[in-house]
């Protein structure tokens, strides 16, 4: 399935911050995401580390 599970500072599955994500973009300085139900997520002070379509995962990390 090409819907992404999103991790912030991944160490374990408890770091999942969103699932079934279909769209993500940088909007007004933060990371904005939308899942397949139309629900949106906002992550401040973070950047995208990896987008992996094989694992359907996106990894973010906190920045100062």
């Amino acid at each position, binding site marked *: 399935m090409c819907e992404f599970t999103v991790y912030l500072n991944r160490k374990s599955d408890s770091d999942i911050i969103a699932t079934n994500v279909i*769209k993500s973009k940088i909007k007004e300085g933060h990371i904005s995401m939308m899942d397949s*139900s139309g629900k949106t997520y906002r992550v401040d002070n973070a950047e995208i580390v990896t987008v992996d379509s094989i694992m359907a995962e996106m990894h973010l990390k906190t920045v100062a």
Partner: protein
Amino acid sequence: MLRIISTGKGGVGKTTTISTLATMMAKEGRKVLVFDTDPSMNLAMTLGIPYQDVPTITENKEEISEELDEMEEENAMAVGKNILDNYSKVNKDGIRIIIMGAIPEEGNGCLCSAVAIVKILMNYVDSDRCPETYDAIFVDSQAGPEILGRGLAKDFDCNLIMTEPTPKSAEVSKQVASLAKRLGITMNLLVINKSEREEDIRKVSDLVGIEPENAVRIRYDHSVIDADWNNQCLLDTYPECDAIKDIYTIKNKLESIKG
């Protein structure tokens, strides 16, 4: 609102069964919405609408994606409304039809994005924002278990696991049944189509791993083939045939889910 999906191997009768159930309910005055998520796109034609007349989601996905670009939940609702208003057709029985479509050109990816858009649309239809209240939503899926892996049928009321009374067909149904267990579907009903023997119920349900009381037969019936050859609606043309009687049994089971 009843939400029903049909799954199983190719050619087992998913489209015929879904279209007949939808027509039965629509003729009783229920408001019915059907999604064709099979890239083969036979459902609209079976319901009397040439599929060329229905704009598909895949051929319009660029426009839909742009609509979501503002990344607001409001945009997702607007996309749902847009698809329902502009990418659907209503047939003579009042059934509203939406076609997901196929991959438009070679090397153009998979159908996951179109399924994601269908999920957004389902969410809109479930919301207070949708002006229509549907009594039943049917999803005709592509062959194989993959549609369940995409999570489209999560928390549906019924998964019609369609099969022929053959081991190869039953093997696909076994995979479907296994995936469906984790999706919170209320009823997984094994439908053994083109069945010529009563004992098919026991043999096939054993193979698939579903209790015989959750299995029904649709008897082999030449009327189904005749209606297809003549491009006729089975229910209109042969309302008393064995297949129709058996599909009424399925309809009664579906209606018993919500009392």
